[in-house]
């Protein structure tokens, strides 16, 4: 069991000012000063895009299983590993109890569309 499993009821949320640069099969996530940079594969980049402060890990796992031929436990492990990596790099925080309607949206600079 990964450390992220205790955060299942929380809402992963991109920190403000984080930039994403899309390449064909990779995405580079960095802070404004580019002191911290992470290279993500396509699945991890998709998980990053879902970190809007109103989507749970369970929802991410269910959606991934609907699209890819992957077992739920494997999908969960992958999602939790990605989130741990993003949190460790300081790009991500976990919110609790944010209402869907009022939940924070990703900032314009980090909404996943590339720069």
């Amino acid at each position, binding site marked *: 069991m990964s450390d992220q499993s205790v955060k299942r009821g929380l809402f992963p949320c991109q920190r403000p000012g984080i930039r994403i640069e*899309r390449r*064909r*099969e990779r995405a580079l996530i960095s802070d404004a000063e580019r002191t911290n940079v992470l290279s993500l594969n*396509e*699945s991890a*980049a*998709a998980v*990053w*895009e*879902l970190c809007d402060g109103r*989507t749970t890990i369970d*929802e*991410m796992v*269910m*959606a*991934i299983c*609907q*699209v*890819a*031929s992957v077992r739920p436990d494997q999908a969960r492990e992958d999602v939790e590993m990605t989130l741990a990596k993003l949190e460790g790099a300081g790009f991500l925080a976990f919110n609790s109890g944010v209402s*869907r309607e009022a939940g924070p949206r990703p900032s314009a600079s980090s909404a*996943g569309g590339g720069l």
Partner: protein
Amino acid sequence: VETDDVTLVLGAGMPTELEALEYALGRRQGVSVLGWNSTVGGTVEKVAALKPDVALVCADFPDQDGITACTEIKRHCAPTRVIVIGPSRDDSVLISAVKAGADGFVTVNDSVEDLVDAVHEVSRGASHIPPMMLGGLLRGLIEFRREDDAAFERFASLRKREREVLVGICAGLGDQAIAARLHLSPHTTRTHAQNILGKLGVHSRLEATRMVFEHDLFARFGIEMDGLVDKRGGGT
């Protein structure tokens, strides 16, 4: 046809699209085009008759959309895998394709190499989604599931009589006809209809009908359209 080839049936609305696809794919090793058609119905029939490994269907046909072709192929020709070719800047087509059971999606901007890769990937049992569109797809599926849960809860709050009136609304009947079938007064029927819209959180009967069919609510609650029969009784 080489025995190891991945076999294909193509479906696209424009003859030029079909010719281009057939020309491009027919020259690649490892794939064989068995047939093609330019209508949804014809494509589904071809797939049923030729049983290819993969059906490659464009999202646009003149008669119906390619999503319908995908749904029909998955329903009637289950072993055949389906790839939909659609726009790159509109997640809604991709989301509809995945909801219809598509195994892969290729955009009109992708190269023939990408298309061939997708065909091989999908024929091996994997799925193929353009990497740049994966986030939007997952977001769309999550939003749909939330709407689905909300629609289910709202429908569950309807009383038995309201569900019966809703069946009439979804069948396209007017207040008079619904009232006659359910032995109600038109006034009572209208009151039920207003209450139904309020409970479902929609503003019109058309919206209510769309919600019912989009989320398959009658089937999920064991309600049949014919004869206004509610198998489970349900309601309060």
